């Protein structure tokens, strides 16, 4: 009887562990463009889906985010310097587009290909 209980318990444990790992592995890890405004999470868009969205930045400023072919870029902006538009397109983990006047940050997350650095000085 003791043996059966132990076997049953071991079985439950194993099944539980399996369930745990299945949950872990199946957690969505698709690449996405995460948008933050003034440091707060604003939205996240799947990089695999082409789209154009208007981001409402600080003080009524706007940036047009375009996702095309797995890359994100800013194609229109209300800010005076338009530096965000000049930053080109991003597609790799950790890459960012920043619009300082509108306090908008677009960051790529969840891609397999990681950048070979943790931060960039300059």
């Amino acid at each position: 009887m003791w043996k059966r209980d132990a076997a049953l318990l071991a079985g439950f444990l194993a099944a539980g562990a399996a369930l745990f790992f299945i949950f872990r592995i199946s957690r969505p890890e698709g690449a996405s463009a995460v948008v933050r405004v003034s440091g707060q999470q604003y939205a996240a868009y799947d990089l695999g889906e082409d789209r154009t969205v208007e981001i409402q930045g600080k003080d009524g400023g706007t940036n047009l985010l375009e996702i095309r072919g797995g890359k994100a870029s800013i194609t229109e902006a209300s800010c005076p310097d338009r530096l965000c538009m000049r930053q080109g397109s991003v597609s790799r983990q950790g890459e960012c587009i920043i619009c300082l006047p509108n306090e908008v940050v677009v960051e790529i997350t969840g891609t397999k290909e990681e950048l070979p650095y943790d931060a960039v000085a300059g």
Partner: protein
Amino acid sequence: MNAEKKSLFIHSRGKQIAAAAAAVILCAVFFFFVSGKGKKKTVSASEELFAMDTVMTVSAVGERAEEAVKASVEEIRRLDALWSVGKEDSEISRLNRHESVELSEDTARLLERAVEIGSDTDGAFDITIYPLMEAWGFTTGEYRVPSEAELEELLQHVDVHSLDDPGSGTAGTSAETSGRDTDGTEAGSDLRQGYTLPEDVQIDPGGIAKGYTSDRIMEIFEEYGISGGLISLGGNVEAWHTREDGSAWRVGIRNPDPSHPALSSAELVGVVEAEDRAVITSGGYERFFEKDGTTYHHILDPYTGRPAEGGLISVTIVSSDGCLADGLSTALFVMGRDKALDYWKEHSGEFDAVLVEEDGSISVTSGLEEIFTSDLPFTVITS
């Protein structure tokens, strides 16, 4: 195990299945709990904020990471409020209006460091450059090219030595002897009552404020027992200890001119493996404007009043002293390659540097030999 306990889950077939399913789910929950508990010991926290006219990220790993990041953000906001030239009631704005200001300890220390670095670099870094920055429009974004006569006139008031011993002679040592108080109000102020800038002199803390701030955050990281942290204050990076796996932080140096034929193949100038080091880059590409086909960048030469023409397009300083690194990245850019390397040879114990010249050639001082990697060719300079 006895028969009574067994009967708890083996009654009928239906109940048996339900019980088994419940047990499996419970086990899974248990594993989630255990795995979560394991992580709790090394919590990581990160925050992004806009301050000092730039975007900043503060990331930390450690049991008290969240508190440390929160305290860091508060410290950034506090120093920004003290020093912002865009805020009318900041200490710097009041100084620039030639009011008599009871300096906070942080402002007093900032000015001391500015004067120290200014003197050491023979004025190549000069915090009194503010009137020139204003004349070129770099403070407002309303860019213009001042006339020679205007520059001549303004240059008369640009002299870091006019600030020697801000406050008084005795106050110079106060920062070291009084220790730090976290709200930065008490210790320095009694020694620094009523500090006034000399007539026509105005200061721009922009070349040193972020370096000072990042050093403060390292102090906060230490206070909270942070095991690893990385901060970027608008591209001024400082690394605290190591990454979670114990390896050094990898800090890239931005390519100052991706359209340059000699640099075009690379995304970065190189990568520095940094541990308890600030990595701070200055380059003309950071802020500039074009007028009549000429490009004017924001790193002004305090001797000529015009954008520095030292033949360098970016200067990176690596040092455990973030404030020094910030000031020197500007100073060495102004000096140009030869003078910059001479300066390094005299101070090689304090910092290392990566210089990128207009022709795309890269020089790296010898202290970085083991920790600098690049896809581009570079020369190691020895002292």
